[in-house]
């Protein structure tokens, strides 16, 4: 699984960091998404999918690794 984030679209709601803190964090100065792991392991598939689904700004795109 490959994860891409769009910092310009991100609105800093933090859903991704809540659901999958192993993969997503937020910048210290403005709360915008930080991608910690662009190719998370299979064990994280479900939570990363949920994070992408919950993202209100559509800032997380998933693809095949």
């Amino acid at each position, binding site marked *: 699984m490959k994860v891409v984030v769009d910092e310009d679209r991100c*609105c800093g*709601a933090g859903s991704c*960091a809540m659901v999958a803190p192993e993969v997503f964090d*937020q910048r210290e100065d*403005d*709360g915008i998404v930080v991608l910690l792991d662009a190719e998370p392991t299979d064990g994280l598939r479900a939570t990363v999918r949920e994070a992408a689904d919950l993202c*209100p*700004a559509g800032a997380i795109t998933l693809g095949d690794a």
Partner: protein
Amino acid sequence: MTTTHSAEADAPEFPMPRAARCPFDPPPEAKAKQEEGPLARVRLWDGRTPWLVTRYAEQRALMADPRVSSDIRRPGYPSPAPVTGEGSKISFILMDDPEHARLRRMVTAPFAVRRVAAMRPAIQKIVDDLIDEMLAGPKPVDLVEAFALPVPSLVICELLGVPYSDHDFFQDNSKVMIRQTTAVEQRQAAIGALAAYLDELVGAKLTEPGDDLLSGLASRVEAGELTRAEAAQMGVLLLVAGHETTANMIALGTLALLEHPEQLARLRDTDDEKLVSTAVEELLRYLNITHNGRRRVATEDIEIAGETIKAGEGIILANDIGNRDPEVFADPDRLDVGRDARRHIAFGFGVHQCLGQSLARLELQVVYSTLYRRIPTLRAATELDEIPFKHDGAVYGVYELPVTW
């Protein structure tokens, strides 16, 4: 076309009334519209007939659609009450990107998930201290006054750098500001009083900055990134949104749990943090206290669910019934604290989704996991039909909740 014309002529009034004795459920007429289809016309206080979007899928899609505007200054915007502000008096929740993003990003950091999580011990102490006071005081007591309002007010004051000793002032003005039945002049006066108060605070932070959000805004004023009026306006938004919403979730959530004792017992008897956070999401879904819908206006023609929302037409996303959509939540009118409800849209969706949601979640997790455990015999000290509900509020809840134990 004649069909559209008659649909507009027959449009029912919005907001719609809830059913008597069903204070936790959305209006039956709104639910009926949802069963009929994803879109309907409704009539507002000013005679306009915007679209009411009734189902979760269409609501979520439209809230994330760039052809849909939140800008209250656009002519077709379906305002819930007469518009009182103009220019710098409008907060960023009523603007579009890039204007909205520029301002929102200035205040996002303190609400980030990790920053908020670090506040847990402080919030736990606030909650425990208030419960100590309640237990030491007379009963029955009004839970709103003694607990539900002070918890989020203390927390947001700390975060913003607002003196809590001014709570009577800002709580009273917030109440006037968000009551839908408030006269235009009264609302203007309340907003003006809060703006003047926050302006003064921002001024004080310019000379004596602290480690708080208003000081951060003051330094941006100094750097020329923000006008002082904009900073004060953001302060008003965060102060009002920061205490009114969570206070209502605490009091109304407690009442809903008292009316569903088997659900209350699950929450009271658990050590499982996961169940507590699941319960918070379910109560957010079930109660959906921002009960008058998210308001938007189309900037282009939008084809959706076999209809065309024309450019310039108003749109109301009724997230209260969206959160009761049986296509998404099985048996949606049942409160089930163990349900996975994280997809709810009680915080909205799209780039305007609630900025303070992490903080709201944490406060509710601490409250729901502490209050019923520490006062296991907590009960309402009056009958359900004696309790005054905020039918006229922009945010739903109870005006008071007498409790005893």
